[in-house]
């Protein structure tokens, strides 16, 4: 990762604070990938961070009144309104001259790529000074795993019982097209990469967008101890790539960089066969996903080589 001037990125995870801001008593499912993402984000950004959370798993995860599992303040807001409400918080803090607080909109993939994309696009176009993290479990997890625009081709959800017929919506690139200073993808299985991207985003002015893949055992249908392994396979097979678009410049992050050579990627089968949500895939479906991965990576290659 490039070292942004003045940004203290970390060489190892040991440098991450021992302080916990995500407290016991939270209400995650066993093996929840989003929980890992929350814990890392709070540690990376520190206690002077305000969460703005629309309807999503995190609405439940933070636990119910009169308790909270968040040591950082949190404003819950309606499903499609995270980026807009965050804009209001940012404006209030700017008016009050509060400069050292990070406003973090923290939304699921449904609240980001579907119902929340208008408010997100508006906030980005206005150059709102905040970080927007989409934690992506590739469906409406909180309501029992219905299809979202972020669900991958062929995946079963409760509203695509025979498998989704469309590919995943490419929201990181949509956000990059807004010309915002920073867009990145991440995965909880690569915590150092995710933490450093958050730290970098924190130091930049303007809208920063990070989409982090958070595997979901009940939705993806794998055994709860395999969450980190699932995230790794997603990256290693190339179905999820880690990159940054910093001031318009695209760069694959190190876990993904070598995979530009397709022979270095693990076979897609290792990923899809490990998850119940893909158990009906035909060989043709697998070929279709592979074709999509190749096409996506051809684009990454062009962007990486700047041609």
């Amino acid at each position, binding site marked *: 990762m490039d070292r942004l001037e003045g940004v203290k990125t970390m060489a190892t995870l040991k440098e991450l604070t021992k302080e916990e801001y995500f407290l016991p008593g939270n209400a995650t499912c066993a093996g929840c990938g989003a929980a890992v993402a929350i814990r890392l984000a709070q540690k990376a950004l520190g206690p002077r961070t305000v969460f703005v959370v629309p309807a999503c798993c995190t609405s439940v995860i933070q636990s119910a009144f009169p308790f909270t599992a968040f040591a950082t303040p949190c404003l819950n807001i309606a499903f499609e309104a995270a980026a807009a409400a965050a804009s209001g918080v940012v*404006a209030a803090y700017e008016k009050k001259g509060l400069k050292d607080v990070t406003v973090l909109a923290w939304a699921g993939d449904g609240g980001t790529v579907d119902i929340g994309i208008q*408010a997100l696009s508006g906030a980005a176009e206005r150059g709102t000074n905040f970080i927007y993290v989409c934690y992506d479990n590739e469906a409406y997890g909180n309501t029992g795993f219905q299809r979202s625009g972020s669900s991958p081709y062929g995946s079963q959800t409760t509203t695509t019982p025979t498998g989704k017929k469309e590919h995943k919506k490419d929201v990181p690139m949509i956000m990059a097209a807004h010309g915002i200073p920073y867009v990145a993808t991440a995965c909880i299985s690569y915590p150092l990469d995710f933490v450093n991207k958050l730290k970098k985003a924190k130091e930049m002015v303007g809208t920063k967008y990070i989409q982090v893949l958070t595997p979901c055992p009940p939705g993806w249908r794998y055994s709860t101890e395999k969450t980190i392994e699932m995230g790794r396979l997603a990256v290693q097979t190339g179905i999820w790539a880690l990159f940054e678009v910093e001031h318009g410049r695209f760069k694959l992050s190190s876990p993904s960089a070598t995979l530009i050579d397709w022979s270095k990627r693990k076979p897609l089968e290792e990923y899809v066969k490990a998850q119940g949500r893909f158990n009906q895939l035909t060989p043709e479906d697998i070929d279709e996903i592979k074709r999509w991965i190749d096409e996506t990576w051809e684009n990454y290659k062009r962007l990486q080589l700047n041609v």
Partner: protein
Amino acid sequence: MTQVIIETGNRIAGLACKAARAEVVAAYPITPQTTVVEQIAELVEGGKLDAKFISVESEHSAMAACIGAAVGGARAFTATSAHGLALMHEMLHWASAARLPIVMAVVNRAMGPPWNIWADFSDSLSQRDTGWIQFYCADNQEIFDTIIQAYKLCEDKRVFLPAMVCFEGFILSHTSMPVKIPDQKEIDDFLPPYNPPWLIDVDNPLSHGSIVYPEWYMEFRYFMYEAMENAGKLIPEIDKEYERRFGFEHGGHIEKYKCEDADLIILSMGTIGSEAKLAVDNLRKQGQKVGTARVRVFRPFPKDEILNLSKNAQMLTVIDRQVSYGMEGPLHTEAKASLYSQTNSPLIAGFIAGLGGRDVTMHDIETMVKKSFQYLKAGKVEKEVQWIGLRE
């Protein structure tokens, strides 16, 4: 020093936002509200209003941003009309249930289809149950004064609810009238800076709006109910205090005109209430004991004031610039409900008039009154709901 200026209702709403020292304004343009937003943008960019103006991409986001601003500790303002207000609906509930004292100008306009940009209360009255205080104005002075008073009321610790200050599109929004603008120092004295009891604040972290189970939810709603009751008590007090400081008041919940000895009282909202005064004068010349009462506050609804009003009158003529399909005009319903506990209630006749900006003239009002007197003479209201001025 008090200044007298001649301005449109929309410009006056913008100036009231400035005089109230709003700190964050998030708004989206819609006819006939547009000139409110334009003026605020102009004031902010011209350095005349020290506020953050967020030019959002929808009204839904406008209210979401106002909510964010208010929890961030800023005095928030917005303005909208018709479809914009309807789009906000979800966030209206959020703002009131989050107990945020946001003030919003609603420039009343008809809901489509068919497209119609003119005066009609169908936009704000269909937001009745969102937990917002609703004021209705009859002239530009009242728009200014009510916006200032609304902040005072909403930010009272006993209330902490948002308020809509409604006024009819074009009839007021685009009509110039003389308005007295009090001295800024005196306004500041009346309306001190926003000082919320809680904030989203890193130095005192809390979670707001997280899940509440059935064993707690009702208590939250009861607090809102109680806050609305408190608002009902405070509205006349604040109006009186405003009068003491600035020299004019608007009647608290209800502006009454020649009601004391009236046999028949015309009940209405907004500018129809001004027109009704002319009708009253004319009818009185003809020897009919008529008065008029203009309901300024639809939520909290002034039940007791309506009850007192009807102690002497034998007939109420209710004019609604809105209809609740399958029932009647909303003011008609609320007035009847207010009188239910009283024996020997006056008769009530409801009239639907002025939808989609159709003029309601003093002659129309006189027609309604004459019809009502016929009912009174017959001892019963033959047709409870009547549409006025329909094409044959």
